[in-house]
């Protein structure tokens, strides 16, 4: 028996570890460092209907224990992703999750439909939480009615399981989670980045050209843990957790809070081997905290509460 294995809607994961959307491109660059077949899954960079060139630079700023980014969903468009990027990732023995985004409900629908024609993608991650684009994204992610509406449309359009990626930039995360669960989401993915800003002292102006950006990295881990823990008690669909994961101990903490899969984003920038290192370390770490398998850890903090 594989002690690290997890079963999720549409996904048979050999381990719960997957690089987070936008922090791993389409895998090409990191395939120079290690064999991507080692990963439970790969979540691809966001796909939109047409190619997007993103925001002006600077697009990133470092913060204490993290970073801000305002990439602006730069991507070559869904057709090019299906034609050029999916076949590359499909060479590896791993699951492919497509992150989809749009400015309108119609665009989300169009992108979801496009992925129906590829056999190599196992699930969609519905990004209703990008804080870095003027239209759409975050709007869908902060209003439960809008979130439910876009979830419904994408569920109807797609033949793949849909994991809705929630924004932490809300006052009631449980309400958002329940709204998308009721609308048919197969799973949740949380959390996306928190909106923040940094001012460059010498010029007295916001450092990012977009002014605001999304905060990620270890600074946001306690927020992610709290939100997953809260949501887990109110929904029955599985959660892919993320936000500041950089060690196997972090993974165990996310599993305890209620995540069934764990995505690693920003930490790939610090250490390109981070996902591979965590996978190697995980069996020892599980053992250290008295567990035999990943499955038995999931949500344990909840039942202890």
């Amino acid at each position: 028996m594989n002690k690290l294995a997890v079963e999720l809607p549409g996904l048979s994961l050999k381990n719960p570890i997957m690089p987070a959307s936008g922090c791993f491109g389409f895998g090409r660059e990191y395939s120079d460092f290690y064999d991507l077949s080692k990963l439970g899954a790969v979540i691809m960079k966001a796909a939109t209907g047409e190619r997007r060139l993103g925001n002006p630079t600077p697009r990133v700023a470092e913060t204490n224990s993290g970073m801000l980014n305002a990439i602006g969903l730069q991507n070559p468009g869904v057709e090019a992703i299906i034609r050029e990027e999916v076949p590359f990732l499909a060479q590896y023995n791993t699951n492919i999750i497509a992150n989809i985004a749009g400015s309108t409900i119609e665009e989300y629908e169009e992108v979801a439909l496009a992925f129906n024609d590829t056999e190599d993608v196992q699930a969609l991650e519905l990004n209703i939480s990008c804080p870095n684009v003027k239209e759409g994204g975050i709007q869908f992610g902060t209003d439960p009615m809008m979130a439910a509406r876009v979830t419904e449309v994408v569920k109807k359009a797609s033949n793949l399981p849909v994991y809705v990626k929630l924004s932490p930039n809300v006052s009631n995360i449980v309400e958002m989670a329940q709204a998308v669960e009721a609308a048919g989401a197969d799973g949740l993915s949380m959390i996306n980045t928190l909106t923040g800003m940094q001012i460059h002292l010498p010029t007295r102006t916001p450092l990012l050209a977009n002014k605001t950006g999304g905060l990620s990295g270890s600074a946001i881990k306690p927020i992610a843990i709290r939100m997953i823990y809260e949501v887990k008690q109110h929904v029955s669909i599985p959660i892919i957790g993320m936000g500041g994961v950089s060690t196997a101990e972090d993974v165990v903490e996310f599993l305890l809070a209620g995540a069934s899969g764990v995505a690693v984003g920003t930490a790939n920038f610090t250490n390109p081997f981070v996902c591979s290192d965590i996978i190697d370390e995980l069996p020892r770490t599980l053992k250290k905290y008295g567990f035999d398998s990943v499955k038995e850890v999931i949500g344990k903090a909840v039942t202890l509460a």
Partner: protein
Amino acid sequence: MISKEIMQILSVSEIASETVEMVLRNEYISEQAIPGQFLHILIDGHTLRRPISIADINRESKTVTILFKIIGDGTKTLAGFKEGMEIDVLGPSGNGFLIEEQDSVVLLIGGGIGVPPMYYLARTMVKKGKKVIAVLGFQSKSHVFYEEKFKELGETIVVTNDGSYGERGFVTDILGKIGSFDTYYSCGPVPMLRAVTNELQGRRGFISIEERMGCGVGACLACVIPATDEKGYKKICSDGPVFDAREVTL
């Protein structure tokens, strides 16, 4: 190919105001690196690595020299590292300078922290039998470094913004006085590169561009620059940092 390597620090010395020279030892990087490539350096406690150009290589002693200015927390911490310590780097990163075999005279224009990559380039050019003219711009006299080392390789003109040493003004102020050359190479802050490419419009040239980076390997799309090709952009960390002056829009 980029590798994650551990480098031993052989020496650390302050060679000009807030400017540190660090000599590192690593076989792979010293064998692979070409002029214009950089190291992406991990500094404990920092989420993002720091890109620093390779200023020189010695294949016999397997050493790599970097020169950096103390700007903020990261470079300040790095400057405090001592001989015998180790640093974790990704490298050699980026594409490096294209050397045109048929050229006989090349003009190298470096500004401030853009000077370091020009040194390894100058040494390589001289080894290939080319004549080098170097124009080096610094803020003021106390910031000047490597003048003597460049002079050993060819004609060298130092410019300081405040006129406290060499010529007064900006590197572009003296480009009119330079003799003929085949190709120019430039590295420095973006406003300087903009002025240089304007001044030398129509000439064959390569520029090395600085931008805030995320992953440093081409995955995250933090450091992009608009380009004139069909894709519409280039990644500075992996397609660059060196670009043909005519293919990108500054």
